[in-house]
């Protein structure tokens, strides 16, 4: 068997060489024979003639030889392709429609797959990535995942037997200066064994060794290939160069390949620079204290020992964690460890459901589009195959095998699939490009690397193959099943509608049903989006500009930085184009907000989200103080003891009565509430009203990270001006990420927009496809019923009756598909999106709009066939019989 396969493969791959060899061999035979004949006394000419006769027909022999090698299949396939191509050339519209339909289906599915693959499945780009595990600490009492402390890491690392290596890392942002240019960069401080644990080789230089990760070691850094390109212009001499991280010199010792984007997709961007963990203390001095404290700041990742599974590691780490909880009850009492495969936990585990759900919706939508495309093509193919029944019958009568005809139709499908698949791949790349440009598309800041890759190609090919089977096999079996005799007797205009009506009707109902599901889903998301525009963010978002400061982590640089910030605020306030400017610790409508523990007599200890703001803040961003006052502008007296609370917190703190003047305890000190600010949206537009506290910025407290400017002109115009002003002041800290109020709103709405836009676009696409399917079924049935309709016309049926007859069929099909589809759509949405739980009147609007849309579609699709039916001329139609 094996040798057969080998011979077949060899014969196909070396087709030309094989043919040449065969020719040579046969020629040799005849010439040798002729020579023998010459020797026996014949003339050369006569000898050659006789040798040729004795040999037989060379062409037939060669054909038999090829067959003996198993090449017949191959030859027939080539023949099928030529035949199919001829057929398609005669009917290019059909071919284009099928290829386009298919490409839309596979393109959408492939794009969604690439996102799902990147976020959920694809292994990290390192050797034996399946052996890598992430270890997360889980606070059982609070039910959330937290970071780990350095002493805990050390304990785990020394006691584990299931892991070969255990590493820890921490991610933060710093200012890095190369050639006088300062950038804000994502940096990963890692233990010395990190890269050897990953088995990641640098493209140049070396990775860290254990000796690099000690307090006494020379400070060294690794840079990402992208950073090397961007900042060092691919200079090979970058190795050995110095890079200033927060004004501390680090020597670049290696370049990390582009494909590695860190083990964790959180934090929006991949790391660009790596430094040893111990060296991080020189950049962020508070880190120095953390090596002996059980305070959470690290994430752990490790490589399994051979023969151990992630589950065994999980059991072991839980045991070690239990021991630590016992030994260190003060800090570790509620902590346990969770070990997860690194490829399955590319972000904090808590996000997994959210991301899975949001990708699931898109996956479902794209699969529906694909199924719809298949149903559509199946229908078109079926119509075409049925029209060719006589041709098939003739071929069967002439001795073609049944399977041969099935193969013929499948080949045609394949021929359509190849361009469909290619165009689909291009569409998928286009969709990726769109997704990349929508920040926060999935509601979470993930550093997704959406680029073309081999897995996408394999998926696209596989899905196309499946589609070909789905849409090709069905009509193929169906059309070739009929026996030759009846089909040949049947004429093209037969009275009988044929037994395939139910099948084609079913396919159309399915298409309309899929379209209805997508439209319902898209409609519900769109309604959601519309409703969101009426949500009050609590402040005017027009004429607002925010910018991010690259706040130094090095305290030595902080004094100058803060003076520069104040100077900038002052200068901007003096500009005629600026209404006012302010500084704050947290940005507006930003998912990341710090929190602080606060205690009051009424509420007991609570964790509050907070912002540190300067006196100009409330005026600048336009959050009204509804009671009491804001922060005073004279910064002299100990302002740290004041606080402004929001309406929700005020209502909670004193059960409705005015909390101004009330005292709260915060980190041991007593603070006085001096004002109440109107509620606003802090993290996202969708959040419920939540308690929030504003504290005054102070020189001892954390520095402000954000600049907020209320402009008198279009805010985007101001960005370059502000940047220039900042550079003129001469701070080396970068300023970046300028966002207008509108940008902030858009980022907050991005998931809804992507969902409404994406699913809605799929829905409209589906509607178009379904109407095409409906049209083709109606047109075919009118053509088939020509005789019946002609007789009706002859006995006096009015055109109106005929038209209604066709339209009724269209409406019945649309109604059947629509009812099932809307019901399924509503059910699916209810399961998927908990936020849409209150489907009531508003849902009703969506459902009735979808129903109306489907009704319009079905009438439009039936117009042309109905008109044609009403114009049938009984005389010519019946004579044509």
């Amino acid at each position: 068997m094996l040798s057969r396969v080998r011979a077949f493969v060899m014969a196909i791959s070396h087709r030309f060489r094989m043919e040449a060899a065969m020719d040579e061999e046969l020629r040799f035979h005849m010439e040798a024979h002729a020579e023998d004949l010459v020797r026996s006394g014949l003339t050369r000419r006569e000898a050659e003639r006789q040798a040729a006769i004795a040999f037989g027909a060379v062409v037939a022999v060669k054909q038999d030889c090829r067959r003996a090698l198993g090449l017949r299949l191959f030859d027939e396939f080539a023949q099928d392709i030529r035949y199919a191509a001829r057929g398609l050339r005669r009917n290019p519209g059909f071919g284009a429609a099928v290829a386009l339909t298919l490409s839309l289906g596979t393109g959408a599915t492939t794009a969604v797959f690439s996102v799902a693959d990147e976020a959920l499945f694809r292994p990290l780009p390192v050797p034996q990535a399946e052996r890598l595990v992430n270890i997360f600490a889980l606070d059982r009492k609070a039910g959330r995942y937290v970071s780990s402390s350095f002493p805990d890491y050390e304990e785990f690392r020394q006691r584990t037997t299931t892991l070969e290596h255990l590493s820890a890392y921490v991610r933060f942002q710093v200012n890095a200066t190369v050639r006088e240019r300062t950038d804000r960069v994502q940096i990963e401080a890692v233990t010395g064994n990190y890269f050897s644990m990953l088995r990641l080789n640098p493209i140049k230089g070396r990775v860290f060794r254990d000796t690099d990760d000690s307090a006494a070691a020379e400070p060294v850094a690794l840079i990402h290939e992208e950073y090397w390109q961007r900042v060092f212009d691919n200079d090979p001499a970058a190795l050995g160069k110095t890079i200033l991280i927060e004004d501390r010199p680090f020597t670049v010792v290696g370049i990390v390949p582009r494909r590695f984007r860190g083990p964790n997709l959180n934090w929006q961007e991949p790391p660009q620079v790596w430094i040893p963990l111990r060296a991080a203390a020189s950049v962020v001095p508070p880190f120095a204290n953390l090596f002996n404290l059980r305070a959470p700041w690290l994430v752990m990742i490790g490589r399994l020992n051979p023969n151990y599974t992630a589950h065994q590691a999980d059991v072991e780490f839980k045991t070690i964690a239990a021991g630590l909880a016992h030994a260190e009850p003060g800090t570790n009492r509620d902590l346990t460890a969770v070990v997860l495969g690194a490829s399955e936990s590319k972000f904090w585990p808590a996000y997994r459901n959210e991301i899975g759900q949001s990708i699931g919706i898109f996956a479902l939508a794209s699969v529906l589009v694909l199924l719809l495309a298949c149903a559509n093509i199946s229908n078109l193919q079926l119509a075409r195959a049925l029209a060719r029944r006589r041709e098939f019958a003739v071929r069967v009568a002439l001795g073609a095998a049944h399977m041969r005809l099935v193969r013929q139709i499948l080949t045609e499908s394949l021929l359509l699939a190849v361009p469909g698949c290619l165009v689909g791949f291009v569409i998928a790349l286009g969709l990726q490009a769109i997704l990349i440009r929508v920040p926060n598309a999935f509601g979470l800041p993930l550093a997704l690397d959406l680029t073309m890759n081999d897995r996408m190609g394999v998926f696209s090919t596989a899905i196309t193959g499946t589609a070909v089977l789905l849409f090709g096999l069905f009509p193929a079996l169906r059309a070739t099943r009929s026996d030759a005799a009846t089909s040949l007797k049947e004429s093209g205009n037969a009275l009988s509608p044929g037994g395939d009506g139910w099948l084609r009707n079913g396919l159309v109902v399915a298409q309309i049903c899929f379209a209805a599901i997508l439209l319902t889903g898209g409609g519900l998301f769109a309604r959601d989006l519309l409703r969101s525009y009426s949500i009050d963010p609590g402040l005017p978002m027009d004429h607002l500009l925010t910018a991010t400061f690259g706040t130094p982590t090095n305290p030595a640089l902080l004094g100058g930085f803060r003076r520069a910030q104040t100077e900038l605020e002052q200068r901007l306030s003096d500009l005629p184009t600026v209404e006012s400017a302010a500084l704050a610790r947290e940005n507006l409508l930003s998912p990341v907000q710090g929190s602080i523990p606060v205690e009051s007599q009424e509420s007991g200890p609570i964790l509050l989200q907070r912002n540190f703001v300067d006196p100009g803040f409330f005026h600048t961003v336009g959050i009204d103080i509804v009671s009491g006052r804001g922060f005073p502008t004279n910064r002299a007296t100990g302002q740290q003891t004041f606080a402004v609370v929001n309406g929700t917190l005020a209502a909670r703190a004193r059960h409705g009565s005015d909390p101004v003047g009330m005292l709260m305890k915060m980190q041991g000190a007593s603070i006085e509430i001096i004002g109440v600010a109107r509620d606003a949206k802090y993290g996202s537009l969708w959040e419920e009203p939540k308690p929030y506290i504003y504290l005054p910025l102070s020189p001892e407290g954390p520095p402000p990270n954000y600049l907020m400017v209320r402009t008198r002109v279009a805010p985007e115009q101001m960005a370059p001006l502000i940047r220039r002003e900042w550079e003129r002041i001469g701070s080396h800290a970068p300023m970046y990420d300028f966002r207008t109020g509108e940008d902030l709103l858009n980022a907050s709405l991005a998931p809804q927009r992507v969902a409404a836009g994406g699913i809605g676009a799929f829905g409209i696409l589906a509607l178009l496809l379904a109407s095409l399917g409906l049209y083709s079924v109606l047109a075919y049935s009118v053509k088939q019923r020509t005789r019946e309709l002609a007789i009706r016309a002859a006995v006096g049926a009015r055109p109106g009756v005929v038209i209604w007859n066709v339209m009724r069929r269209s409406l019945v099909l649309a109604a059947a598909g629509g009812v099932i589809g809307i019901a399924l759509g509503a059910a699916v949405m209810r399961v998927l999106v908990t936020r849409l739980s209150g489907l009531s009147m508003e849902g009703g609007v969506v459902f009735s709009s979808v129903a109306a849309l489907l009704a319009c579609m079905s009438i439009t699709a039936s117009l042309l066939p109905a008109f044609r039916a009403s114009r049938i001329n009984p005389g010519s139609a019946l004579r044509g019989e």
Partner: protein
Amino acid sequence: MDKTVELIPGTLDLLILKAVSLEPLHGYGVLLRIQQICRGALRIQQGSLYPALYKLEAEGLISSSWGQSENNRRAKYYDLTEAGRARFLQESQKWTRVVAVMSAALRA
């Protein structure tokens, strides 16, 4: 009276295996060898030899290689493989039995 007989279907393969079991032969050589061992009593359509050779090679019973012919030309030589040798023994025993059974039956 013509003393040659038509080939019984399926026997050509066996004759080819027999022919190349003695020494490697090119296609024409196989034909000559068969005619020689049958003393010209078998009529073979020469062309039909090649599909049979290709099939046996595809089945791994014989192997081929290019070599020099007796008149110094490039020719494709066929040789028996181990699998081919085993098959040849098996098939020839079977053939002998069939002939014995058939002869006995017809004599009865």
